[in-house]
């Protein structure tokens, strides 16, 4: 009976060690694999991403949206530190606005610009009625974007 307990204990410890090593390996290597989009700083750091199809996410910089015609837009995406210029041809979603979250899909060009072929508005976790926003903004308590 003791030998049975012993062998079970050894099995348990062995599997625990394997699981621990496996989890450590996964955590240390799990950096940007499941990432849905990159931020501007991450993209600028990795110049090898140039020329690839990918997604870029961040806030639309204030006063950066320009439309050449009705359907061609230029705007900058920022994460507070860095900005990347984006060109997009198409219809913008309703929730697209300056100083709001956005994820664009397209090609990161070699000259550092981003040609988007799809724009997704990223919603933040705040749900507020318009009147509340007004009062919050007036009293200076509003900490959202």
């Amino acid at each position, binding site marked *: 009976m003791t030998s049975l307990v012993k062998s079970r204990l050894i099995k348990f410890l062995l*599997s625990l060690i*394997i699981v621990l090593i*496996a989890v450590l390996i*996964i955590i240390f*290597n799990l950096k940007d694999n499941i990432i849905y989009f990159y931020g501007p700083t991450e993209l600028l750091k990795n110049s090898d991403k140039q020329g690839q199809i990918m997604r870029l996410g961040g806030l639309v910089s204030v006063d950066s949206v320009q439309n050449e015609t009705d359907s061609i837009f230029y705007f900058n995406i920022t994460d507070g530190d860095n900005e990347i210029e984006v060109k997009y041809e198409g219809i913008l979603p309703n929730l697209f606005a300056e100083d709001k979250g956005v994820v664009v899909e397209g090609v990161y060009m070699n000259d550092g610009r981003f040609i988007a072929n799809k724009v997704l508005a990223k919603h933040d976790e705040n749900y507020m009625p318009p009147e509340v926003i007004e009062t919050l903004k007036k009293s200076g308590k509003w900490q959202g974007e």
Partner: protein
Amino acid sequence: MLNLIKRDLLLSFYSSANFFFTVSFFVLILILIPFAFGTQSDQLKLLFKGVVWIALALSIIITVDRIYNADYEDGNLDIIMQKNKTIEYLVISKYVTHWFIYCLPLLVILPILSFLFYLDYFETIQIFINLFIGSFGMVFIANFVSALTLGAKRTIFLKAIIMIPLFVPFIIFGSDAASWPILLGLSMLSFVISIYVTAYGLRLYGE
């Protein structure tokens, strides 16, 4: 343990049609890519890296009925379980033979296929390493699903429904060349889970 490996290899040698079917299945799925997406070389290259994982997953799914089911239905599993009192050894030898019979041929044929899809040596080696590591994890998962569904009816669809969600992590990380350590971690995790669950399933169906 060695006996069992020898026996399974001999058995698969005797019914070698199964083995050829699996290889042809794998090749045929990949050959469908140019028909579906055109023959532009850049595109083929990109698609191959992803679809090769889907092909591997599907090839493993169609073999899952042959791991324990045949032996369970004709009664050989009883003899095997009686002779291998430590079921964990039995399970490990099944991993070895299942990988050897159904995954190794696919890996052997992979370089030939990858040249058909315009991949260079370096990319071929990267894909090979990823598939090599990932195929172990998939084999572990296939084994425990096979052991759990031994007595189930309409099994192949059910097994596919159980296995595909479990294969998702492998497929996500598989197509990225740099993520072989994650595949290694996933394979190790699935080994530990699988060895307990497979042994549990076999004991239950042995009762």
